[in-house]
Protein backbone atom coordinates (compact mmCIF):
# COMPACT_ATOMS: atom_id res chain seq x y z
CA UNK A 1 0.00 0.00 0.00
CA UNK A 2 1.45 3.41 -0.98
CA UNK A 3 2.27 5.96 1.65
CA UNK A 4 -0.29 8.38 0.28
CA UNK A 5 -3.43 7.56 -1.73
CA UNK A 6 -2.97 10.27 -4.35
CA UNK A 7 -5.85 9.05 -6.51
CA UNK A 8 -8.20 9.42 -3.58
CA UNK A 9 -6.91 12.93 -2.98
CA UNK A 10 -7.39 13.90 -6.62
CA UNK A 11 -10.87 12.41 -6.52
CA UNK A 12 -11.63 14.55 -3.52
CA UNK A 13 -10.82 17.78 -5.37
CA UNK A 14 -14.01 18.02 -7.48
CA UNK A 15 -16.12 17.11 -4.44
CA UNK A 16 -14.53 19.81 -2.33
CA UNK A 17 -14.78 22.32 -5.19
CA UNK A 18 -18.56 21.99 -4.92
CA UNK A 19 -18.43 23.22 -1.32
CA UNK A 20 -15.87 25.94 -1.93
CA UNK A 21 -18.47 28.54 -3.01
CA UNK A 22 -20.31 28.23 0.32
CA UNK A 23 -17.09 28.76 2.26
CA UNK A 24 -16.18 31.79 0.17
CA UNK A 25 -19.72 33.14 0.38
CA UNK A 26 -19.80 33.02 4.15
CA UNK A 27 -16.41 34.73 4.31
CA UNK A 28 -17.32 37.38 1.72
CA UNK A 29 -20.70 38.23 3.27
CA UNK A 30 -19.17 38.15 6.76
CA UNK A 31 -16.34 40.43 5.68
CA UNK A 32 -18.65 42.91 3.93
CA UNK A 33 -20.96 43.15 6.95
CA UNK A 34 -18.03 43.27 9.38
CA UNK A 35 -16.45 46.14 7.43
CA UNK A 36 -19.63 48.20 7.53
CA UNK A 37 -20.15 47.51 11.22
CA UNK A 38 -16.49 48.13 12.04
CA UNK A 39 -16.50 51.48 10.22
CA UNK A 40 -19.56 52.51 12.23
CA UNK A 41 -17.95 51.41 15.50
CA UNK A 42 -14.68 53.13 14.59
CA UNK A 43 -16.44 56.43 13.84
CA UNK A 44 -18.30 56.21 17.16
CA UNK A 45 -14.97 55.69 18.91
CA UNK A 46 -13.18 58.47 17.01
CA UNK A 47 -15.96 61.01 17.62
CA UNK A 48 -16.55 59.66 21.16
CA UNK A 49 -20.31 59.88 20.65
CA UNK A 50 -21.75 59.92 24.18
CA UNK A 51 -23.53 56.73 25.23
CA UNK A 52 -22.74 54.90 22.01
CA UNK A 53 -19.05 55.08 22.82
CA UNK A 54 -19.50 53.15 26.05
CA UNK A 55 -21.74 50.60 24.32
CA UNK A 56 -19.12 50.18 21.61
CA UNK A 57 -16.40 49.60 24.15
CA UNK A 58 -18.50 46.91 25.82
CA UNK A 59 -19.26 45.30 22.46
CA UNK A 60 -15.60 45.23 21.46
CA UNK A 61 -14.56 43.95 24.85
CA UNK A 62 -17.02 41.04 24.73
CA UNK A 63 -16.40 39.94 21.16
CA UNK A 64 -12.64 40.17 21.49
CA UNK A 65 -12.70 38.62 24.92
CA UNK A 66 -14.54 35.39 24.14
CA UNK A 67 -13.68 32.56 21.73
CA UNK A 68 -15.36 32.58 18.31
CA UNK A 69 -16.50 28.98 18.85
CA UNK A 70 -18.27 29.98 22.06
CA UNK A 71 -19.95 32.87 20.25
CA UNK A 72 -21.11 30.58 17.43
CA UNK A 73 -22.62 28.10 19.88
CA UNK A 74 -24.22 30.96 21.73
CA UNK A 75 -25.92 32.25 18.56
CA UNK A 76 -26.88 28.87 17.15
CA UNK A 77 -27.83 26.84 20.23
CA UNK A 78 -28.26 29.46 22.95
CA UNK A 79 -30.09 32.47 21.55
CA UNK A 80 -33.07 30.60 20.04
CA UNK A 81 -33.95 29.44 23.56
CA UNK A 82 -34.03 33.05 24.66
CA UNK A 83 -35.58 34.70 21.60
CA UNK A 84 -38.31 32.66 19.97
CA UNK A 85 -38.04 34.30 16.53
CA UNK A 86 -34.51 32.97 16.21
CA UNK A 87 -35.65 29.35 16.09
CA UNK A 88 -35.51 29.74 12.32
CA UNK A 89 -31.79 30.53 12.39
CA UNK A 90 -29.76 28.12 10.30
CA UNK A 91 -26.09 27.25 10.65
CA UNK A 92 -25.00 29.43 7.76
CA UNK A 93 -26.76 32.52 9.10
CA UNK A 94 -25.43 31.88 12.60
CA UNK A 95 -21.90 31.52 11.23
CA UNK A 96 -22.11 34.75 9.23
CA UNK A 97 -23.53 36.51 12.29
CA UNK A 98 -20.75 35.20 14.50
CA UNK A 99 -17.98 36.03 12.04
CA UNK A 100 -19.40 39.51 11.48
CA UNK A 101 -19.65 40.42 15.15
CA UNK A 102 -16.40 38.76 16.17
CA UNK A 103 -14.23 40.23 13.44
CA UNK A 104 -15.88 43.66 13.43
CA UNK A 105 -14.69 44.07 17.02
CA UNK A 106 -11.07 43.58 15.94
CA UNK A 107 -11.44 45.55 12.72
CA UNK A 108 -13.06 48.53 14.45
CA UNK A 109 -9.91 49.06 16.49
CA UNK A 110 -7.57 48.94 13.51
CA UNK A 111 -9.82 51.27 11.49
CA UNK A 112 -9.99 53.65 14.44
CA UNK A 113 -6.20 53.65 14.76
CA UNK A 114 -5.83 54.30 11.03
CA UNK A 115 -8.25 57.27 11.15
CA UNK A 116 -6.60 58.76 14.23
CA UNK A 117 -3.21 58.25 12.59
CA UNK A 118 -3.97 60.57 9.66
CA UNK A 119 -1.91 63.70 10.20
CA UNK A 120 -3.77 66.64 11.73
CA UNK A 121 -2.38 68.95 9.06
CA UNK A 122 -4.44 67.04 6.47
CA UNK A 123 -7.64 67.82 8.37
CA UNK A 124 -6.71 71.47 8.80
CA UNK A 125 -5.86 71.88 5.13
CA UNK A 126 -9.21 70.38 4.12
CA UNK A 127 -11.13 72.56 6.59
CA UNK A 128 -9.20 75.66 5.51
CA UNK A 129 -10.48 75.40 1.94
CA UNK A 130 -14.05 75.16 3.24
CA UNK A 131 -14.75 71.43 3.20
CA UNK A 132 -17.50 70.13 5.47
CA UNK A 133 -16.70 67.37 7.97
CA UNK A 134 -18.30 64.81 5.67
CA UNK A 135 -16.30 65.91 2.64
CA UNK A 136 -13.14 65.94 4.73
CA UNK A 137 -13.75 62.36 5.85
CA UNK A 138 -14.70 61.06 2.41
CA UNK A 139 -12.10 62.81 0.29
CA UNK A 140 -9.07 63.09 2.56
CA UNK A 141 -9.12 61.16 5.84
CA UNK A 142 -10.69 57.83 4.86
CA UNK A 143 -8.61 57.37 1.67
CA UNK A 144 -5.46 57.95 3.70
CA UNK A 145 -6.64 55.75 6.55
CA UNK A 146 -7.50 52.99 4.08
CA UNK A 147 -3.89 52.73 3.05
CA UNK A 148 -2.88 52.18 6.67
CA UNK A 149 -5.75 49.83 7.50
CA UNK A 150 -5.71 47.57 4.42
CA UNK A 151 -2.85 45.27 5.44
CA UNK A 152 -4.42 44.46 8.82
CA UNK A 153 -7.92 44.22 7.36
CA UNK A 154 -6.66 41.74 4.76
CA UNK A 155 -5.14 39.71 7.56
CA UNK A 156 -8.52 39.62 9.29
CA UNK A 157 -10.14 38.54 6.04
CA UNK A 158 -7.66 35.69 5.74
CA UNK A 159 -8.37 34.76 9.33
CA UNK A 160 -12.09 34.88 8.64
CA UNK A 161 -11.85 32.53 5.66
CA UNK A 162 -10.15 29.97 7.85
CA UNK A 163 -12.63 30.60 10.65
CA UNK A 164 -15.54 29.63 8.37
CA UNK A 165 -14.39 26.05 8.96
CA UNK A 166 -15.97 26.32 12.42
CA UNK A 167 -19.37 26.33 10.67
CA UNK A 168 -19.12 22.55 10.46
CA UNK A 169 -19.65 22.42 14.21
CA UNK A 170 -23.07 23.99 13.55
CA UNK A 171 -23.87 21.25 11.04
CA UNK A 172 -23.07 23.27 7.94
CA UNK A 173 -21.53 21.27 5.14
CA UNK A 174 -18.93 23.63 3.78
CA UNK A 175 -15.32 22.84 2.87
CA UNK A 176 -14.43 21.41 6.28
CA UNK A 177 -17.78 19.71 6.83
CA UNK A 178 -17.58 17.99 3.45
CA UNK A 179 -14.05 16.82 4.14
CA UNK A 180 -15.11 15.45 7.51
CA UNK A 181 -17.89 13.45 5.88
CA UNK A 182 -15.62 12.11 3.15
CA UNK A 183 -12.97 11.12 5.66
CA UNK A 184 -15.49 9.36 7.85
CA UNK A 185 -16.57 7.29 4.84
CA UNK A 186 -13.12 6.36 3.56
CA UNK A 187 -11.13 6.31 6.80
CA UNK A 188 -8.37 8.08 4.83
CA UNK A 189 -8.13 10.89 7.38
CA UNK A 190 -4.66 12.06 6.51
CA UNK A 191 -5.36 12.33 2.78
CA UNK A 192 -8.69 14.07 3.34
CA UNK A 193 -7.44 16.66 5.79
CA UNK A 194 -4.19 17.37 3.99
CA UNK A 195 -6.25 17.98 0.85
CA UNK A 196 -8.54 20.44 2.57
CA UNK A 197 -5.54 22.08 4.24
CA UNK A 198 -4.03 22.67 0.80
CA UNK A 199 -7.36 24.13 -0.32
CA UNK A 200 -7.31 26.72 2.46
CA UNK A 201 -3.63 27.35 1.92
CA UNK A 202 -4.08 28.09 -1.78
CA UNK A 203 -7.00 30.43 -1.13
CA UNK A 204 -4.97 32.34 1.43
CA UNK A 205 -1.93 32.53 -0.85
CA UNK A 206 -4.12 33.88 -3.62
CA UNK A 207 -5.43 36.53 -1.24
CA UNK A 208 -1.93 37.38 -0.07
CA UNK A 209 -1.04 38.01 -3.69
CA UNK A 210 -4.07 40.28 -4.09
CA UNK A 211 -3.02 42.04 -0.89
CA UNK A 212 0.48 42.72 -2.20
CA UNK A 213 -0.87 44.20 -5.43
CA UNK A 214 -3.39 46.30 -3.54
CA UNK A 215 -0.73 47.64 -1.19
CA UNK A 216 1.56 48.55 -4.06
CA UNK A 217 -1.28 50.51 -5.62
CA UNK A 218 -2.24 52.22 -2.38
CA UNK A 219 1.39 53.19 -1.74
CA UNK A 220 1.82 54.77 -5.13
CA UNK A 221 1.24 58.28 -3.78
CA UNK A 222 3.85 57.86 -1.07
CA UNK A 223 6.87 56.77 -3.09
CA UNK A 224 9.65 59.32 -3.16
Amino acid at each position, binding site marked *: MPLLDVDYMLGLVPILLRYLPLTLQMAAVGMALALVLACGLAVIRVLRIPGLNAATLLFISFFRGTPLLVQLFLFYYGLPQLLAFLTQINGITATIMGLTLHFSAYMAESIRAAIVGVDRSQT*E*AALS*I*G*MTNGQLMR*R*IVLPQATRVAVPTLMNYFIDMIKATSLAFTLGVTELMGATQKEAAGSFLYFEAFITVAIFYWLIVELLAWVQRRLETRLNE*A*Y*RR
Partner: protein
Amino acid sequence: MIKVEGLIKRFGGQAVLDGIDLAIEQGEIVVIIGPSGTGKSTLLRCLNFLERPDAGRLTIGDLNVDVTRATRADILTARRRTAFVFQNYALFANKTALQNIAEGLIVVNRWPKERAHARAREILERIGLADKADAYPASLSGGQQQRVGIGRAMAAQAEVILFDEPTSSLDPEWVEEVLGLMKRLAAERQTMLVVTHEMSFARDVADRVIFMEGGRIVEQGPPDQLFRAPQDPRTRDFLRQVLATQVALDVPD
Protein backbone atom coordinates in the same frame (compact mmCIF):
# COMPACT_ATOMS: atom_id res chain seq x y z
CA MET B 1 -12.27 94.07 2.69
CA ILE B 2 -11.37 92.16 5.83
CA LYS B 3 -11.97 93.63 9.23
CA VAL B 4 -11.30 92.27 12.70
CA GLU B 5 -12.56 94.01 15.82
CA GLY B 6 -11.70 93.18 19.41
CA LEU B 7 -10.51 89.67 18.62
CA ILE B 8 -9.68 87.63 21.71
CA LYS B 9 -8.41 84.07 21.90
CA ARG B 10 -7.46 82.32 25.10
CA PHE B 11 -5.69 79.03 25.57
CA GLY B 12 -6.29 77.68 29.07
CA GLY B 13 -7.14 81.08 30.54
CA GLN B 14 -4.11 82.74 28.94
CA ALA B 15 -5.01 85.37 26.33
CA VAL B 16 -2.97 84.61 23.23
CA LEU B 17 -4.83 87.31 21.30
CA ASP B 18 -5.69 90.19 23.55
CA GLY B 19 -8.02 92.46 21.59
CA ILE B 20 -6.85 92.66 17.98
CA ASP B 21 -8.27 95.36 15.68
CA LEU B 22 -7.24 95.12 12.08
CA ALA B 23 -8.58 96.15 8.68
CA ILE B 24 -7.12 95.07 5.37
CA GLU B 25 -8.08 96.77 2.10
CA GLN B 26 -8.53 94.85 -1.08
CA GLY B 27 -5.18 94.46 -2.83
CA GLU B 28 -3.24 95.34 0.29
CA ILE B 29 -0.19 93.33 1.29
CA VAL B 30 0.18 93.21 5.06
CA VAL B 31 3.06 91.50 6.83
CA ILE B 32 2.97 90.62 10.51
CA ILE B 33 6.25 90.33 12.37
CA GLY B 34 7.06 89.73 16.00
CA PRO B 35 8.66 87.31 18.46
CA SER B 36 7.60 83.67 18.55
CA GLY B 37 4.54 82.85 20.62
CA THR B 38 2.96 86.28 20.37
CA GLY B 39 -0.18 85.10 18.61
CA LYS B 40 0.69 85.88 14.98
CA SER B 41 -0.19 82.41 13.73
CA THR B 42 -3.18 82.22 16.06
CA LEU B 43 -4.53 85.43 14.51
CA LEU B 44 -4.36 83.88 11.04
CA ARG B 45 -5.91 80.65 12.29
CA CYS B 46 -8.76 82.59 13.91
CA LEU B 47 -9.56 84.37 10.62
CA ASN B 48 -9.92 80.90 9.06
CA PHE B 49 -11.72 79.46 12.11
CA LEU B 50 -9.06 76.78 12.48
CA GLU B 51 -9.18 78.19 16.00
CA ARG B 52 -12.47 79.37 17.45
CA PRO B 53 -11.95 82.89 18.82
CA ASP B 54 -13.39 83.71 22.25
CA ALA B 55 -14.63 87.19 21.34
CA GLY B 56 -14.64 89.69 18.53
CA ARG B 57 -16.28 90.63 15.24
CA LEU B 58 -15.14 89.44 11.87
CA THR B 59 -16.04 91.03 8.53
CA ILE B 60 -15.05 89.43 5.24
CA GLY B 61 -16.87 90.96 2.29
CA ASP B 62 -20.57 90.84 3.11
CA LEU B 63 -20.05 88.34 5.93
CA ASN B 64 -20.19 90.14 9.25
CA VAL B 65 -20.36 88.02 12.37
CA ASP B 66 -19.83 88.01 16.07
CA VAL B 67 -17.26 85.19 16.17
CA THR B 68 -18.81 83.60 19.25
CA ARG B 69 -22.16 83.33 17.44
CA ALA B 70 -20.80 82.19 14.07
CA THR B 71 -22.93 79.37 12.69
CA ARG B 72 -21.56 76.42 10.79
CA ALA B 73 -22.55 78.20 7.55
CA ASP B 74 -20.76 81.40 8.63
CA ILE B 75 -17.62 79.41 9.35
CA LEU B 76 -17.71 77.71 5.96
CA THR B 77 -18.22 81.10 4.29
CA ALA B 78 -15.28 82.60 6.19
CA ARG B 79 -13.10 79.67 5.19
CA ARG B 80 -14.09 79.90 1.55
CA ARG B 81 -13.15 83.57 1.52
CA THR B 82 -9.79 83.11 3.21
CA ALA B 83 -7.22 80.78 1.71
CA PHE B 84 -4.52 79.41 3.98
CA VAL B 85 -0.89 78.60 3.24
CA PHE B 86 0.61 76.41 5.95
CA GLN B 87 4.11 76.39 7.36
CA ASN B 88 4.39 72.64 6.78
CA TYR B 89 2.67 72.87 3.31
CA ALA B 90 -0.06 70.39 4.40
CA LEU B 91 -0.66 69.17 0.87
CA PHE B 92 -3.16 66.32 0.60
CA ALA B 93 -0.80 63.35 0.67
CA ASN B 94 -3.15 61.12 -1.32
CA LYS B 95 -3.52 63.57 -4.18
CA THR B 96 -1.27 64.74 -7.01
CA ALA B 97 -0.14 68.35 -7.41
CA LEU B 98 -2.94 68.88 -9.93
CA GLN B 99 -5.55 67.27 -7.70
CA ASN B 100 -4.39 69.28 -4.69
CA ILE B 101 -5.11 72.48 -6.57
CA ALA B 102 -8.36 71.24 -8.14
CA GLU B 103 -9.76 69.61 -5.00
CA GLY B 104 -11.39 72.71 -3.54
CA LEU B 105 -12.87 73.71 -6.89
CA ILE B 106 -14.45 70.28 -7.31
CA VAL B 107 -15.60 69.63 -3.75
CA VAL B 108 -16.28 73.09 -2.37
CA ASN B 109 -17.16 75.14 -5.46
CA ARG B 110 -18.75 72.14 -7.21
CA TRP B 111 -17.03 72.78 -10.54
CA PRO B 112 -17.12 69.97 -13.10
CA LYS B 113 -13.89 67.98 -12.97
CA GLU B 114 -12.70 69.00 -16.45
CA ARG B 115 -13.11 72.69 -15.72
CA ALA B 116 -11.37 72.37 -12.34
CA HIS B 117 -8.47 70.47 -13.88
CA ALA B 118 -8.11 73.03 -16.67
CA ARG B 119 -7.95 75.79 -14.07
CA ALA B 120 -5.46 73.78 -11.98
CA ARG B 121 -3.23 73.40 -15.06
CA GLU B 122 -3.28 77.17 -15.58
CA ILE B 123 -2.21 77.64 -11.99
CA LEU B 124 0.52 74.99 -12.26
CA GLU B 125 1.79 76.93 -15.26
CA ARG B 126 1.85 80.14 -13.24
CA ILE B 127 3.70 78.56 -10.33
CA GLY B 128 6.18 76.97 -12.73
CA LEU B 129 5.24 73.36 -12.00
CA ALA B 130 3.36 72.38 -15.16
CA ASP B 131 5.62 69.33 -15.51
CA LYS B 132 4.76 68.16 -11.97
CA ALA B 133 0.99 67.94 -12.46
CA ASP B 134 0.87 64.22 -11.76
CA ALA B 135 3.53 64.14 -9.05
CA TYR B 136 2.49 63.28 -5.50
CA PRO B 137 3.66 65.54 -2.64
CA ALA B 138 6.08 62.90 -1.32
CA SER B 139 8.10 63.15 -4.53
CA LEU B 140 8.30 66.97 -4.53
CA SER B 141 10.95 69.15 -2.88
CA GLY B 142 9.93 71.39 0.01
CA GLY B 143 9.96 74.43 -2.26
CA GLN B 144 7.82 72.70 -4.86
CA GLN B 145 5.37 71.51 -2.21
CA GLN B 146 4.98 75.01 -0.84
CA ARG B 147 4.44 76.40 -4.34
CA VAL B 148 1.66 73.86 -4.81
CA GLY B 149 0.34 74.94 -1.39
CA ILE B 150 0.23 78.51 -2.67
CA GLY B 151 -1.34 77.27 -5.93
CA ARG B 152 -4.08 75.60 -3.90
CA ALA B 153 -4.70 78.91 -2.13
CA MET B 154 -4.72 80.77 -5.48
CA ALA B 155 -7.36 78.41 -6.84
CA ALA B 156 -9.74 79.32 -4.03
CA GLN B 157 -10.00 82.90 -5.37
CA ALA B 158 -10.40 84.01 -1.80
CA GLU B 159 -10.66 87.61 -0.63
CA VAL B 160 -7.33 87.15 1.10
CA ILE B 161 -4.55 84.57 1.23
CA LEU B 162 -3.23 83.98 4.73
CA PHE B 163 0.42 82.90 4.78
CA ASP B 164 1.51 81.28 8.05
CA GLU B 165 5.32 81.38 8.03
CA PRO B 166 5.41 79.92 4.53
CA THR B 167 9.18 79.61 4.35
CA SER B 168 10.02 78.62 7.94
CA SER B 169 10.10 74.85 7.27
CA LEU B 170 12.07 75.17 4.05
CA ASP B 171 15.71 74.37 3.51
CA PRO B 172 17.45 77.67 2.68
CA GLU B 173 17.90 76.64 -0.95
CA TRP B 174 14.11 76.63 -1.53
CA VAL B 175 13.22 79.88 0.26
CA GLU B 176 13.84 82.18 -2.70
CA GLU B 177 11.57 80.34 -5.14
CA VAL B 178 8.69 80.53 -2.68
CA LEU B 179 9.28 84.19 -1.84
CA GLY B 180 9.61 84.88 -5.57
CA LEU B 181 6.17 83.42 -6.19
CA MET B 182 4.71 85.44 -3.32
CA LYS B 183 6.28 88.59 -4.78
CA ARG B 184 4.64 87.88 -8.13
CA LEU B 185 1.27 87.48 -6.42
CA ALA B 186 1.86 90.72 -4.55
CA ALA B 187 2.66 92.48 -7.83
CA GLU B 188 -0.74 91.30 -9.12
CA ARG B 189 -2.28 92.93 -6.03
CA GLN B 190 -3.52 89.70 -4.51
CA THR B 191 -4.64 90.65 -1.01
CA MET B 192 -2.23 88.96 1.40
CA LEU B 193 -1.73 88.70 5.13
CA VAL B 194 1.69 87.21 5.76
CA VAL B 195 3.28 86.07 9.00
CA THR B 196 6.98 85.75 8.38
CA HIS B 197 10.47 86.21 9.77
CA GLU B 198 11.77 87.22 6.32
CA MET B 199 12.41 90.87 7.01
CA SER B 200 13.63 91.61 3.50
CA PHE B 201 10.33 90.34 2.13
CA ALA B 202 8.47 92.59 4.55
CA ARG B 203 10.58 95.56 3.60
CA ASP B 204 10.38 95.04 -0.17
CA VAL B 205 6.85 93.80 -0.65
CA ALA B 206 4.56 94.90 2.18
CA ASP B 207 2.30 97.93 2.00
CA ARG B 208 2.06 97.79 5.75
CA VAL B 209 4.04 95.99 8.44
CA ILE B 210 2.49 95.10 11.78
CA PHE B 211 4.56 94.35 14.84
CA MET B 212 2.83 92.07 17.33
CA GLU B 213 3.86 91.17 20.84
CA GLY B 214 1.98 89.62 23.74
CA GLY B 215 -1.18 89.08 21.71
CA ARG B 216 -1.47 92.75 20.74
CA ILE B 217 -0.59 94.97 17.84
CA VAL B 218 2.18 97.14 19.22
CA GLU B 219 2.94 99.21 16.18
CA GLN B 220 2.18 99.32 12.48
CA GLY B 221 3.01 101.37 9.43
CA PRO B 222 4.61 101.35 6.00
CA PRO B 223 7.82 99.28 5.98
CA ASP B 224 10.00 102.34 5.52
CA GLN B 225 8.62 103.91 8.64
CA LEU B 226 8.52 100.76 10.77
CA PHE B 227 12.01 99.57 9.88
CA ARG B 228 13.72 102.97 9.83
CA ALA B 229 11.95 104.77 12.60
CA PRO B 230 10.20 102.32 14.92
CA GLN B 231 8.42 104.24 17.68
CA ASP B 232 7.96 101.61 20.37
CA PRO B 233 11.01 100.33 22.30
CA ARG B 234 9.70 96.74 21.94
CA THR B 235 9.71 97.10 18.17
CA ARG B 236 13.21 98.53 18.25
CA ASP B 237 14.50 95.66 20.44
CA PHE B 238 12.91 93.04 18.24
CA LEU B 239 14.21 94.56 15.01
CA ARG B 240 17.69 94.93 16.39
CA GLN B 241 17.79 91.27 17.42
CA VAL B 242 16.34 89.97 14.19
CA LEU B 243 18.24 92.21 11.85
CA ALA B 244 21.52 91.35 13.50
CA THR B 245 21.12 87.89 11.99
CA GLN B 246 19.49 88.95 8.71
CA VAL B 247 20.01 91.57 6.03
CA ALA B 248 21.73 94.69 7.27
CA LEU B 249 19.16 97.46 7.59
CA ASP B 250 20.04 100.47 9.63
CA VAL B 251 17.90 100.79 12.70
CA PRO B 252 18.37 103.90 14.76
CA ASP B 253 18.65 103.60 18.52
